[in-house]
């Protein structure tokens, strides 16, 4: 059964990792997806990998003009949105004593401001009864040395879902966060600022801390996001769904 048959879904941060895996799964379930990401080459490769029912729009969620362009494309092509997966995010290592203002601003610009306007600007196109899924992180409830700014942004995201649940209840739009634990994506090695050795060490340490004894696969996150996007979760709103192998749960 195609649980998202005919649905129009927008996915930010759609060119790799969790976003890409989710875009693939959404299309398998019958949806049309519009993916966005900053890197044109990666985004095009992602669209090629998804193959069908996909539109790629290059853009940065931290730039409001880019978001306007994204939704203009969505409006022109589909006219409305049923599902929004606000997934774009950034996190680089910066211990308290060493973090710069630029680090702070950049992290909040993408993860908080970018996500806020990703949702706000989607609303005029949103169909009543739709589903909004925000990518938070297990770090929204955990201390993660060196990643305090990242963790704070993800706690902010979790709380957006609470207020928005109430603000959008009359439109019957559900809003939930999904909080991944450590997932095997390219991001750990390529975007966090860790050396390859540090990244490897971090991966091994994560795996040992997770009750399931391993990191998760992007496809496992995609399955949970699909659940939140579909009617299967029709009575779930305002929650933080942890998909973390138990890391932040025990």
């Amino acid at each position, binding site marked *: *059964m195609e*649980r998202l048959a005919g649905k129009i879904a927008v996915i930010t941060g759609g060119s790799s990792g969790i976003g890409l895996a989710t875009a693939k799964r959404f299309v398998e379930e019958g949806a049309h997806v519009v993916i966005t990401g900053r890197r044109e080459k990666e985004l095009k490769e992602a669209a090629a990998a998804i193959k069908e029912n996909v539109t790629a729009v290059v853009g940065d969620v931290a730039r409001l003009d880019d978001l306007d362009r994204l939704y203009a494309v969505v409006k022109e092509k589909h006219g409305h949105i049923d599902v929004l997966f606000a997934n774009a995010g950034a996190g680089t290592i910066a211990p308290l004593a060493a973090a710069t203002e630029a680090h702070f601003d950049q992290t909040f610009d993408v993860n908080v401001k970018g996500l806020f306007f990703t949702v706000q600007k989607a609303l005029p196109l949103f169909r009543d009864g739709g589903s909004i899924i925000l990518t938070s992180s297990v770090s929204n409830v955990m201390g993660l040395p060196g990643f305090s700014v990242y963790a704070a942004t993800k706690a902010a995201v979790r709380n957006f879902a*609470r207020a928005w*649940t*109430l603000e959008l*209840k009359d439109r*019957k739009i*559900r809003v939930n966060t999904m909080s991944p*634990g450590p997932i095997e994506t390219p991001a750990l090695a390529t975007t966090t600022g860790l050396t390859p050795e540090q990244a490897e060490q971090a991966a091994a340490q994560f795996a040992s801390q997770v*009750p*399931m*004894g391993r990191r*998760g*696969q992007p496809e*496992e*996150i995609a*399955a*949970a996001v*699909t*659940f939140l996007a579909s*009617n*299967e*979760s*029709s*009575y*779930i*709103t*305002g*929650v*933080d*769904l*942890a*998909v*973390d*192998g*138990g890391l932040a*749960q*025990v």
Partner: protein
Amino acid sequence: MNRLNGKTAVITGGATGIGLAAAKRFIAEGAFVFIFGRRQEALDAAVADLGSNSRAVNGSVSDLADLDRLYTAVKAERGTLDIVFANAGTGSPLALGKITPEHIDETFDTNVKGTIFTVQKALPLMGKGGSIILTGSSAGTTGAPAFTAYSASKAAVRNLARTWAEDLKGTGIRVNVLSPGATATELAKEALGEEGQKAFASMTPLQRMADPAEIGAVAAFLASSDSSFMTASEVAVDGGLAQL
């Protein structure tokens, strides 16, 4: 969609309400389901409704010999077990000041002790890929006037999953809690009356009570490999009631 093809499931409290709705969904997704409950008449009606991929075993989760009979029946017909939905529960109001030892014992015997032995006795039949789902409640994280025993028992259930995720490390068996809010089962509708149902609906951000089928759909997600990286979690299916 046949995410539970060939799987064998046990659902306690399976003859009515949430348990029955989950049984329907599991079977629709390809599973073979044993429902367990105390009232033979309700079990017979449920099996007639569920069809040939269901069996009923009469018993109480607070009676360990009954649980042994349940798992003997599962082993005899299916050999192994993939999914346990430990859903049987009980709850009645008694305000602080009027609580009796019998009230506490009855509530904890079913909701806590019953859940523990439902799971413990299932383990010998379970293996890699197994999924255990415990029914919690939004009352487990919120204050519910006069529901001292019930809400405490459901907080206990939520915490069982934390310990068991660690105890089950390396087995490939996952354990999660599904916590419903106000759900329009026949029993709840009767207990709440029209006014009570309206009150719950208005307190809930989604402005309505849940259809039991909506809880069954989430149980199916937790039973299936779609939730393969989830363990020790609590999934609130409460229309936002306890989330804000």
